[in-house]
């Protein structure tokens, strides 16, 4: 078989090739940001809360300066430094200065691409993947800069996890059976040893992808997380987690239609070695199969998939969560005279990066069932089987109208604390309407709407194992162009949840050891009004007024409102 080496144009390394082709040896890029939130607390809460300050001002300014250095045609160095200053840091007291990103990448032997240093790592949704957090879908455009800031600061990119290590990939072309074979490997450091009781933890991964018959793609992905023995001299413990995944996709052209068949299946193993009395963790497997169909003009799309993820399936690279509810919010972290931690609201989820996590976690972290109960760990959520159907339609002028509906039904595979199983249903509708396209107006007038209803049920005895939890999200957004570059934006997000659930407490081995009863009778409303001045595609200034109303009928005396005036200036250059 005659094989021809070539470099691939797949994946994230396509960027450096373009960069490498540039003439300049050094160029500069970066970002600047100023954020100021001036908030006022009101509501029934302050009738009894005599300790929480009524007004808070938080904010910061920062500047990132990045360098692309190309010492030769095949090498590129990227470094970004950041200097930031808290709004309360006077006379330099709040200034931090650090290296935000550093890597070197290039070509070896004109065939192998490599990168060392900081990496954005991603494979498949079951092996290495950063699933979106709560409330991420179809948010009004008025929030988009806040989302961009969180994604940029936390390096979420396109569902990737930021790691430190090395990666290399290369491709082969064949003239029989297989058209192209692409091989990629990576190794990253996931945790730093303290030299005594906590060993180093590494993540190794490999992807082999073969394209055949022009349409068929077969792939194998492997992730392996393991502690390095003897890197901590007083610990013999070694955690290991491996996931093998096989995937296939085939694109078929039917009469006027594009059909894409997709499947992925695999298996996980997890173990703790060198520790006395550890449980044996069973292997877990998963299967995901489905199709996506659209017409040639792509004015309608339909997709369906079936998914089954066993209860014991463990994938540290895919089951780690973005939103960490144990973190404290930047504003009003505590409330009531008991100084209790203030519960997370949709305002924080959408705008406060303090809740966002950058680290892979070996355990299944807690989540808020009122926000997301069906797939809190993304597609790799263990103990789920079911399917979903997605429909989409848009006018040939995509700016005019887009409509869509998603429906999903899932069940547990294993009961938690009972033989009865939870069932989940999730229905979503969305619409995007460019009203100015309708009447051919020159000034943009856009309306977006989204509604989601999620329902969790489990039969059983009232107060013991019976569950009934319903949550509804409604999002509305309108943007109107007053003059070129200046938009008036209004938005509303409503969240209502009622019913009961049980939240599992897990030990260090992910075993459930206890349950806490969870009840909700929650109404959250976030209203927004403001203007957005778009200097350029990557440079905007937002002046907004937010009003957050949190009303949990189970804690009626804690109802509160946060009225916030927010300034956000953001620039990428």
């Amino acid at each position, binding site marked *: 078989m005659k094989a021809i080496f070539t470099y691939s144009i797949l994946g994230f390394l396509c960027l450096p090739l373009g960069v490498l082709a540039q003439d300049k040896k050094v160029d500069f890029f970066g970002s600047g940001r100023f954020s100021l939130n001036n908030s006022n607390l009101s509501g029934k809460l302050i009738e009894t809360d005599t*300790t*929480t*300050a009524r007004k*808070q*001002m938080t904010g910061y300014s920062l500047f990132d300066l990045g360098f692309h250095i190309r010492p030769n045609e095949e090498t590129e160095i990227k470094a970004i430094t950041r200097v930031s200053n808290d709004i*309360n840091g006077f006379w330099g*007291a709040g200034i*931090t*200065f*650090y290296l935000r990103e550093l890597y070197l990448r290039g070509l070896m032997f004109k065939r192998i691409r490599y990168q060392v240093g900081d990496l954005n790592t991603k494979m498949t949704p079951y092996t290495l993947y950063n699933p979106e957090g709560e409330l991420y879908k179809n948010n009004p455009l008025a929030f988009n800069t806040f989302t961009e800031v969180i994604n940029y600061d936390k390096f979420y990119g396109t569902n990737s996890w930021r790691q430190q290590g090395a990666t290399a990939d290369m491709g082969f072309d064949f003239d029989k059976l297989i058209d192209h074979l692409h091989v990629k490997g990576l190794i990253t450091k996931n945790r730093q040893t*303290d*030299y*005594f*009781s906590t060993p180093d933890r590494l993540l190794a991964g490999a992807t082999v992808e073969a394209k*055949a*018959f022009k*349409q*068929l793609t*077969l792939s194998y992905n492997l992730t392996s997380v393991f502690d390095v023995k003897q890197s901590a001299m*007083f610990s013999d413990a070694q955690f290991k987690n491996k996931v093998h995944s*096989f995937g*296939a996709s085939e694109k078929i052209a039917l009469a006027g239609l594009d059909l894409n*068949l997709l*499947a992925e*299946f695999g*298996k996980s193993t997890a173990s703790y070695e060198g520790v006395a009395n550890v449980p044996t963790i*069973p*292997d877990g*497997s998963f*299967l995901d*199969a489905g199709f996506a169909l659209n017409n040639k003009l792509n004015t309608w799309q339909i997709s369906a998939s079936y998914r*089954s993820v*066993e*209860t*014991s399936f463990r994938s540290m690279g895919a089951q780690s969560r973005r939103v960490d509810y144990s973190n*404290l919010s930047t504003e*009003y*972290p*505590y409330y009531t005279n*008991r*100084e209790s931690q203030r519960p997370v609201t949709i305002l924080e989820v959408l705008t406060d990066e303090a809740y966002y996590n950058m680290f892979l976690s070996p355990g299944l972290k807690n989540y808020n069932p009122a926000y997301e109960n069906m797939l809190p760990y993304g597609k790799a959520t263990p*103990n789920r089987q079911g399917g979903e159907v997605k429909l989409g339609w848009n006018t040939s002028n995509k700016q005019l109208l887009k409509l869509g509906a998603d429906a999903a039904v899932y069940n547990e*595979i*294993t*009961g*938690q*604390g*009972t*033989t009865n199983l939870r069932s989940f249903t999730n229905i979503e509708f969305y619409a995007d309407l460019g009203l100015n396209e309708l009447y051919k107006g020159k000034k943009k007038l856009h309306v977006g709407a989204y509604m989601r209803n999620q329902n969790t049920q489990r039969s*059983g*005895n009232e*107060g*013991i*194992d019976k569950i009934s939890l319903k949550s509804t999200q409604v999002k509305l957004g309108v943007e109107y162009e007053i003059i070129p570059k200046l938009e008036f934006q209004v938005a509303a997000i409503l969240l209502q949840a009622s019913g009961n659930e049980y939240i*599992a407490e897990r030990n260090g081995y992910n075993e*459930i*050891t*206890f*349950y806490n*009863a969870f009840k909700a009778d929650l109404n959250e409303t976030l209203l927004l009004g403001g203007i957005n001045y778009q200097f350029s595609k990557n440079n905007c200034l937002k002046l907004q007024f937010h009003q957050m109303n949190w009303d949990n009928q189970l804690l009626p005396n804690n109802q509160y409102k946060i009225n916030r005036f927010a300034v956000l200036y953001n620039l990428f250059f």
Partner: protein
Amino acid sequence: MNKNTFLYISILALFTMAGCKKDSKVEGPELVDIFGDFQIMEPLKGSASTADFAAGDVIYYHAKLSIRTNWTVEVIGLNSGARKTFTGNDKDFSLNQLAWNGTITFAPFFRKNEPCVARMTFANYPDTLYSDTLTITAVRPTPEVDILIDDFESTIKPYNTFTEGQQAFNGTSVNYQGVSPAEKTRFYVLAGNHGPTASLFLCGMNLTSKISMGTEENYYQFATDNPSKVYFNAFIYGWGDNKAELSIEFQEDDNKDGVYQPAEEGAYTYRIPINWTGWKLVSFSYADTKISTSGGFGNVDRTGKKDLDRIIATQYLLLAQAGTSGNTKVGIDFASFTYNSPFQP
């Protein structure tokens, strides 16, 4: 082959799944065992009515409940107010699980011939159970600590104190706001005032190892270099205002030149939110400390690891919990290091 490839793969996948081991039907403990009817099946009782802790007596407490639920058992000295607390969620805790050998959780110490009673409360139920009275015929001898950092009895020891803004008190005291020391006659108080948007740091005290030991040695002389085998212990007084946080910092003179340089040498810290009222015994191993996160204040470690043999000073910082304001304070008494296990007076 082309057309059928996907079909073959799908069939193979389904067979793979079908061949996999199926999950068991129930994960975790039974819900009925936690959320069923709550009943006291057997009352709280101790294994004896007298205890000679000096002779090594151990009292076993036992109760039996119909379900698992979060409970707290407190053994309270009726004269001294000393407390030993246990928490758990077992419904029929075996005798070995709740064994009390006369140690304390909250100072002061239990006294000779003192009557004690155990009280059991539940997080989700209003019931309260009391045991029969137990009389301590002899108290447990206070164990020796391996290295005494300070009992704060000296009135002339040169503590290095510092503050930011509205400091109220930073020194030793015999009786501060009606609070008596946990041990002997004096204890150390850090107190300060802060606004809601002020810096979280209020005031602090630094005690060098040389002054602590009263010798010419710059560093504590530990018998081991293993951080997981060395425990810091201290009685910490909380006023119950939930505003204070104590940061205990260990400064390492990485280059052993006798001077700690915060921009170049590591400092390891352990932060404790003060959310209780009374004297609580706090212990943690040196392995549990984290490197300082403050730029220029110990966040760079030349050796890259925890070096017990280079601890040149311990530092105690009173911090305000985020989002709080007003006066807050914390008391410290009898700070020490022990080997292998926490100090258990």
